[in-house]
């Protein structure tokens, strides 16, 4: 049986990818941020997922304004890297898992989540920045990836509640796949930030801290946050945090927070990062460590 072992929350700010690609990780502005992900890279190297489900949003790269899917699942073999306007990032293409992804779609639609099926698409910084932060710079990515793109660009994004319920349906879909697979699910974007108009640069550390706390303590409280509250309290682009709730929903009721990092700024963003292990995986690791 396939199973989800953990969830990763992380910002996906494009400037992070650009800093990495341009060799700036040791510069004073960037060093604290990249240092903050070092323990996570170790965690990931140990976890060795077979598949990553990457919940992210496209930033007007794979999708223009002709078609705007609320939830789109990537079922391709391979996802090439998009040129977002400054040249494509020099990272490897992303290997998909069409059979598994198609199974997820089938299960999710029957579970009343109507996914848009995407058989060809390029992926942008929303997906590649988290890959870089957690996997570094390998010649080829060490895992297959199922991209799940969520519309958070044209208001309204799906509600937090809808996203949380989708996460639960993803858990059921994964667990109904026979092959033994270790799956890690990412929720990306956020945390507080606004990159438009006169209020650009808004950061709300208190909001972000509460959000990180409640991922393990009280996810139901997060599910109740209304769109207006994200926008008003944490910035126009903070609505991306609903994607973290898909990740959280997919982990089951009990999780263990094993790592957290928070840093301001990366460009205009409050960068948040968390690793949540499912209870089962956490206990299994504890047993192994004791043996």
């Amino acid at each position, binding site marked *: 049986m396939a199973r989800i072992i953990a969830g990763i929350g992380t910002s996906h700010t*494009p*400037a992070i990818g*650009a800093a990495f690609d341009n060799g700036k990780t040791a510069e004073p*502005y960037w060093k604290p941020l990249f240092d903050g992900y070092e323990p996570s890279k170790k965690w990931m190297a140990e976890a060795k997922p077979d598949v990553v489900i990457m919940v992210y949003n496209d*930033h*007007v*790269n794979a999708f*223009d*304004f*002709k078609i705007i899917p609320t939830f789109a699942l990537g079922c391709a073999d391979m996802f090439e890297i*998009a*040129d*977002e*306007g*400054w*040249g494509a990032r020099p990272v490897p293409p992303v290997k998909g898992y069409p059979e598994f992804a198609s199974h997820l779609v089938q299960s999710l639609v029957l579970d009343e989540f109507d996914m848009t099926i995407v058989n060809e698409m390029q992926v942008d910084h929303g997906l590649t920045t988290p890959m870089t932060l957690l996997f570094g710079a390998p010649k080829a990515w060490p895992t297959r990836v199922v991209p799940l793109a969520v519309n958070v*660009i*044209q*208001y*309204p994004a799906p509600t937090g509640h809808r996203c949380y319920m989708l996460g639960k349906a993803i858990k059921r879909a994964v667990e109904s796949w026979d092959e033994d697979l270790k799956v890690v699910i990412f929720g990306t974007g956020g945390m*507080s930030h*606004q*990159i*438009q*108009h*006169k*209020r*650009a*640069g*808004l*950061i*709300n*550390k208190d*909001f972000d801290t509460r959000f990180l706390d409640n991922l393990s303590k009280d996810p139901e409280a997060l599910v109740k946050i209304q*769109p*207006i509250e994200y*926008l*008003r*309290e*944490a910035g*126009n*682009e903070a609505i991306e945090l609903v994607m973290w709730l898909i990740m959280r929903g997919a982990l089951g009721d009990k999780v263990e927070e094993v790592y957290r990092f928070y840093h*301001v*700024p990366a*460009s*205009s963003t*409050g960068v948040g990062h968390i690793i949540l292990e499912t209870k089962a995986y956490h206990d299994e690791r504890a047993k192994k460590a004791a043996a």
Partner: protein
Amino acid sequence: MERKQQDYDDIPGTVVFDAQRARAGYHLNQFLYSLMKAENRKAFLADEYGYMKAYAMSEEQKQAVLKRDWNTLLHLGGVSYALAKLAFTDEHSYQYMAAEMTGMSQQEYLDMMVKGGRAVEGWRSKKERGEQ
């Protein structure tokens, strides 16, 4: 048609890209999307006004593009991620564009961010600020 008022219209310094604005901005955003391709960026820079003729944009939108008048473009239906492609075409970053939108200098904006960003206090509500 008059804009239908929304709860988020009360947030100061913020232009939410909703269905009404997406309608008004459709051709503008499709033009901006075309700047993803290197050859299009080159063609646009060689003849900006001429390049935009292929898109059914309003004259007001075209003039705002020529002036890189970011905040006007937001009000005319442009969305920041598409507008960023215009900034990238000029070899600027998201951060550059965001700073321009605030009216601060690049250095002032960078300093504000390094110090922890713009606090939400005072920026929650137009009503609170006595703005329309």
